């Protein structure tokens, strides 16, 4: 049998420029500061981590989005990417900017997701969407890497396969973190995030 790919959109190949509007934070921009509370009531302030010299990874999160399930349930992309760097000055924060009543919103649902997905980092609740809007976070997941000097080093997708099932060949976040830890330039500082829309209120 011939296998015809002529009608099969090559999701990976199109990823770099597939986003409709790239407006928002660009690599090199100052990362907006925030203080948010996690599912257990603990408060987290971005600046505190930066003052400690940490690199901070932000992951926009919605436990019921198929793309979050892809990377947290079907595969352990986020946990494994974090595990590789957690002892090396990297902090990982998931942020749920879904509004009240929207899919994946609510303390209980997110608390349950932390257990269900065995998430080893905090899931912060941003119900007003204020932090999500400040970052122009559009999808779940939408990934940002912030260097210890408070600058955006990466904005985009976790990897290069936009489907809800398959993993990509390149994990952009892992690649960028490796470069930063080695003091090198991030070769791909901006890609198109993919996933479900962040469920903002308006």
């Amino acid at each position, binding site marked *: 049998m011939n296998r015809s790919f*002529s009608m099969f959109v090559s999701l990976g190949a199109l990823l770099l420029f*597939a986003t*409709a*509007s790239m407006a928002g934070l660009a690599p090199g921009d100052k990362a907006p500061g925030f203080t948010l509370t996690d599912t257990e009531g603990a408060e987290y302030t971005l600046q505190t981590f930066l003052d400690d010299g940490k690199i901070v990874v932000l992951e926009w999160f919605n436990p019921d989005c198929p793309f979050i399930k892809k990377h947290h349930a079907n595969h352990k992309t986020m946990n494994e990417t974090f595990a590789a760097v957690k002892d090396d000055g990297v902090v990982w924060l998931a942020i749920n900017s879904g509004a009240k009543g929207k899919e994946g919103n609510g303390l209980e649902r997110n608390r349950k997701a932390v257990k269900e997905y065995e998430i080893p980092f905090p899931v912060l609740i941003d119900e007003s969407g204020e932090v999500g809007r400040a970052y122009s976070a559009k999808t779940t997941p939408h990934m940002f890497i912030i260097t210890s000097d408070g600058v955006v080093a990466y904005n985009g997708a976790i990897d290069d396969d*936009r489907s809800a*099932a398959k993993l990509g060949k390149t994990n952009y976040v892992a690649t960028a973190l490796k470069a930063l830890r080695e003091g090198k330039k991030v070769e791909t500082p901006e890609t198109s995030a993919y996933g479900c829309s*962040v469920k903002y209120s308006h």
Partner: protein
Amino acid sequence: MPSTRNIPQFTLVAFLMGTAILGAGCSAEKKQPTDSNPVVITLETVPGNATPGDSVTLVWKFDLAADWHLYWAGRNDTGFPPLIDLELPAGWVAGGLQWPVPERHVSAGDILDHVYFGELILIQKIGAPDDAILGGQVEIKADIQWLACKDMCVPGRTHLTVNIPVRSHADNSDPNSASRAAARLPVPLPDRILETRWEAATFHIHSPGARRLTFMPTDDCGQLVDLLEDGQAERLALRFKPKGETVGPVRGLITIEQESGNPRTYRIDYPAALHEAAHPGG
């Protein structure tokens, strides 16, 4: 009992989410999409049989439950378009999917997508080899994936095996959905409808008499600064991010709405321009 003379047989092999059903005119009862099963896929062929050395058109119809949408295969902030991966016998050739004009859809959080509500019909040509065996059947396997969204997103995937009879003459069947699909395709841009010019990294588009223009970029379009802001207006000023010494190309669809008459959508393709050589008014 309905005639099956012109009706190819479709065999549902498996489905995970969504529903795939038999083709046009078959006696199969058509299912309706619902919130719990928001996509129903139907496959028809035009004509109902293949002919050696000629082409047959596959008509993929995605019926959507109310308020659910599927994605266009162009630039979007979220989601992904339906994917159809075919396995064909040796000598048979598949053409690309032909996508109808989508809707510009802005959701909370300034998220911009180009989508389809209600139904999406994709058409696709399959070329038969000259030595296709008369009286036999060609088996085509399809792996279909999609993402349907409303206030949540649901991925779906189904595998279909299609058996199309090979005969010496094509029947004259013309399913209504194929005609509807053809009517919704974007068309080539006629001469002198648009006035365009580069001004530094901004591409200006004007259509005399138009009250609104909408630009929907394909994935091979140059990188835009802010399509949400720039993509819909009476006159467009599309800001591009330079790539090296060039800006653009400008590729995609443009919908022109006049004061009267139906909107028309055209394919546009303007080559990349030298950024440093682009002069105001040039």
